[in-house]
């Protein structure tokens, strides 16, 4: 089996999708990352980035696993219209942590029910299997570990390990410091860190408690973790390409291995 992990970013925008020429480089789709490892196709979050043809160009298989961090709509809106879920030959295992007494299916059905959405989950033809999120589990030969994020209503941070390489997906995370012990231990030495960095330090004076990190804080955490590569994600929806490029350049002078994720970008580990 090829020990390579392949990661493709389909949506790196936070909160809500944006579009237009000012957002062409970094993209406007909300949270969604495709991972291919050990012959398994894993979808991290189902934001609007999941729409379109990216799926067909990746590793379209009869089986996929979907690891959802939490049920805020910017992480779910790609799910209801996701084409493969209407294919009876497809099986999809959906992992979403039980929150506020609602199971994974119940959370999904809150969104997928009239009047918010006309199609319910039981109308989908695929073999949909909903799971709560344990602390650690496996998808084929791929190991998954999780930790709880600091985010209003809760969210899950995933660590995917295969072939001695690992990717940590930590969106919607508001760390309490530049060196949070629990997270740094969780992500230590990972091959790729995908880390929330929605705000600037100036913005954070007004957004503290919204459940997101700042760019300098996340860069410092990436350095502290010893992550080999880091892509900062969950870009604020008002952040244009020009602004992001300028911020990225400023970060890179201090932390060469920290960059901003772009929609469509791919990393091989």
């Amino acid at each position, binding site marked *: 089996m090829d020990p390579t992990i392949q990661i493709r970013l389909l949506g790196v925008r936070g909160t809500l999708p944006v579009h237009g020429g000012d957002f062409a480089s970094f993209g406007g789709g909300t949270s969604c990352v495709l991972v*291919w490892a050990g012959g398994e196709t894993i979808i991290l979050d189902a934001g609007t980035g999941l729409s379109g043809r990216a799926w067909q160009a990746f590793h379209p298989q009869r089986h996929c696993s979907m690891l959802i961090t939490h049920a805020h709509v910017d992480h779910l809106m790609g799910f209801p219209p996701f084409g493969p879920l209407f294919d009876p030959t497809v099986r999809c295992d959906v992992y979403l942590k039980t929150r506020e007494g609602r199971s994974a299916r119940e959370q999904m059905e809150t969104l997928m029910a009239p009047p918010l959405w006309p199609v319910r989950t039981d109308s989908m033809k695929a073999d949909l299997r909903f799971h709560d999120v344990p602390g650690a589990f496996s998808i084929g030969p791929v190991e998954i570990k999780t930790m709880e994020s600091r985010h209003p209503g809760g969210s899950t941070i995933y660590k995917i390990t295969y072939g001695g390489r690992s990717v940590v997906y930590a969106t919607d995370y508001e760390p309490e410091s530049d060196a949070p012990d629990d997270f740094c231990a969780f992500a230590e030495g990972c091959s790729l860190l995908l880390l929330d960095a929605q705000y600037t330090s100036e913005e954070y004076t007004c957004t503290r408690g919204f459940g997101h990190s700042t760019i300098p804080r996340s860069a410092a955490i990436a350095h502290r973790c010893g992550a080999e*590569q880091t892509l900062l994600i969950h870009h604020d929806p008002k952040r244009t390409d020009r602004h992001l*490029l300028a911020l*990225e350049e400023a970060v890179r002078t201090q932390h*060469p*291995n920290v960059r901003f994720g772009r929609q469509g*970008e791919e*990393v091989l580990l």
Partner: protein
Amino acid sequence: MKKSVSSIRLRRLAALCLALMLALSLGTAAWAEDTASGADLRLTAAEGTVTLKNSSGKTLSVRDDMKLYSGYVLSTSAKSYAYVTLDSTKVVKLDASTKVEVRKSGSKLELLVSAGKLFFNVKAPLSPSESLNIRTSTMVTGIRGTSGLVEVRDGLTSAVSIYDGQVEVTTANAATESGFQTTTVAAGQTGMSLPVGSDSWRVILEGLTAEDVPGFAAVELAKDPELQQRIAEATDLPVAEIVAGAKGRLERDEDEAQAELDRIADEAGGLPNRTSQAPEFAAPQPEPGWTPVPDPAPEPTPVVDYTVSTPITGAELQSLLNTYQTVTIASGGSVTIAASESVSVPAGKSLTVAAGATVTVAAGGTLTNEGTLTNNGSISNEGYIGNNGTYIGKSPSNSGAGSTYNILILPEGMVTSADGKCHINSGTSISGSDLKEILENNNTSFGIGIVVDSGASVTIDAGDGAVNLLSSQTLTISSGASLTIAGMLNNSGVIVNQGTISVTGTMNNYGSFTNSGNFTNGGTYANGIYSATGAVGTLTNEAGGQITNDGKFYNGQTTSDSSVTLTNDGTIVNNSGKRIYIYGITINNGTITNFGLLLISQSSGYLDTTYGQIANVDDGEMSQLP
């Protein structure tokens, strides 16, 4: 105060020059008489005031197309030029204020340049029996079929610039068995001979720019489309731009030369301006017909050097610098530039602090160099020291609490050479923190070039923090030198490796990295990135260069880096179990031996091996994921 011409130095120099001339020239007897064989050497044209003397020192009247014999000496005055041809394919032009002796024996021609500049254009390669050498007091340039410029900068320094073709430059080198050293100067390069110690010269190669082409040569280029084409093909010089600006450049050169002559005349006590006063450039006396007339009586040689061997003040030093061409603070001598004093080494003049001599810039004092400042002794700065000219030798020590400087402050074991670069001397090891100190804590409004000389080493440890080479900075690892990166080096400038670079930490290349030595990566090497300014980062492994990957080697780090470039004309070995990631453009004209995995991104990676080869050995494989 004791005034003395440094006669010992002059005697030594004369002896060296003599030794070099005897050693490098063809047998003296061969030049003693001009044989009838070979084409005639002719002075085809003269512009302005051109003086010609025969081998006996008799002044001859000048006319176009006159034949020149061995031992004749041509001198040009200000705004004056002379053309010498051997045949239709070999043209030489003397710049203004230039002095050349011709020597010819059969088909062997030698031009001895003792002052000024000389442009040459040899359109067709010389036959095996022919030779054309251009000699200065410090080097011999062998011409076979090329164009370029030879310049005598001072008694110890000469330079040759090559516009097309290449030449071999021979200099004395006592360290070699033969006593000589030969250096190839290629098109687009300037080779400058610099003294090393008391009996050797070395040739420093630098890139040639349009600004380096003087007006008197540019106007010749403008006349010759065939030459323009040759130069355009051989170099990156903006030939059209040089041609378009040739006339203006010539006028500017002439104006600058005249201004310098006027300044010298003024300093010499109001001598008449508009003509050169140097005896070798004096205009000839009018004479009728062909009759030679006696040489004019020699003028007294002006005193140009002054040696200080006692303590003096800054004001006294400034007075000496205003009067003399070269001022040397000898061992035992010292200068104290007090709080109220400001000393400037004028442009075109030299101040040398010899070993054992000291210069102290007190708090509130100022020392500024516009000319050449050589420090082989000790300069201590508690006030301000700045360099706008050429600084050579040991770094000043910057010790005062309120001191400022616009000059490189270097650690022990590093000197600044006449090439403008900071050399880490053989036998010296410096740390990454020393390197950071040079790169980051100096005034970086000017570029910094660091050369790790053969036998020297630099080690960047993890505890040193990231060392950042900025865009105006260069780092050259000479053959026999080494750079070890156990920490982190981020290059946004230029790294040239002719020696050994070993990475066990991280090296990020966002600038230019050229390897012709050995580069071993046992940690992480990342080439290039896509940034706000576009793709940056190029790695060129030249023919003969060896890259060995025993860690993680990236050409681009994500698919966003699709346009970063790696060109391999040498050898790359990827060891077993190791990966080379290819997200960018990879042109392989050499050999890649792969025991591990070449991982190519199908989305962005491009591997062109049309002119090279890839050998997958043992379990080695190439993989391209959909």
